[in-house]
């Protein structure tokens, strides 16, 4: 199954959804080359925003990838209030949408600790290095803690370069 993060990012942006890129792709963004097989974002939830996510992926055969019966993404009014996360499989890959990030906080807090980065395919908000380290530390899995070691080294190197210039 393909994983095309750039195409997913562009679709989310085009849907009008406000979001911050978190997780493994953000680790790559900061300079640590890990292989990550999903796109993680943090975004505000609620009907309007979930509708935007739905519109971004509706033609990509989306389904709730963690449900036993691979439930298709068909949202009802009752589901809007109870959903805090969406773990989707789409034809362009896995897309995990979270309403909060462990170690950082809710979307507003995540947004405050993000940086806007312009790329050839659009402008996207990425979790900043300190918040990414906090989130990976809070996640606490072995692979997260290994990423933390490397992210701390990158942070140290960036601080040295700022001093130098």
């Amino acid at each position, binding site marked *: 199954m393909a*994983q095309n993060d750039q195409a997913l990012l562009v679709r989310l942006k085009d849907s009008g959804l406000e979001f911050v890129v978190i997780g493994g792709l953000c680790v*790559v963004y900061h*300079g*640590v080359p890990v292989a*990550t097989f999903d796109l993680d974002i943090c975004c505000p939830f609620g009907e309007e925003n979930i509708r935007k996510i739905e519109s971004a992926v509706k033609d990509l055969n989306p389904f709730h990838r963690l449900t036993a019966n691979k439930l298709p993404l068909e949202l009802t009014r009752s589901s809007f209030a109870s959903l805090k996360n969406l773990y989707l499989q789409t034809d362009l890959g896995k897309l995990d949408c979270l309403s909060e990030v462990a170690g950082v906080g809710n979307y507003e807090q995540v947004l405050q600790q993000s940086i806007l980065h312009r790329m050839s395919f659009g402008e996207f908000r990425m979790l900043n290095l300190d918040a990414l380290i906090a989130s990976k530390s809070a996640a606490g899995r072995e692979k997260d803690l290994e990423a933390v070691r*490397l992210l701390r080294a990158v942070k140290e*190197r960036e601080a*040295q370069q700022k001093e130098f210039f």
Partner: protein
Amino acid sequence: MIDAATLAQMNGEYVMPPDAGPAWRAAAEYGFDMSLIEESLKLTPEQRFAEHQQVIDFLIELQESGQSHGAK
């Protein structure tokens, strides 16, 4: 004539940058290949994404190829 230090580097020994701080040294001593981080930091974030996409595409292809091989 290749000196011992060069030979060691040819065999994979990492040369610690003279300005490496404690976090960098700790990561290297933990066993990470810090030369990969050095190379990555030379790229722009967009170049890093492009490299990552290439790796992911290759790994998925490899995985699918392995699965279809196993199915035979």
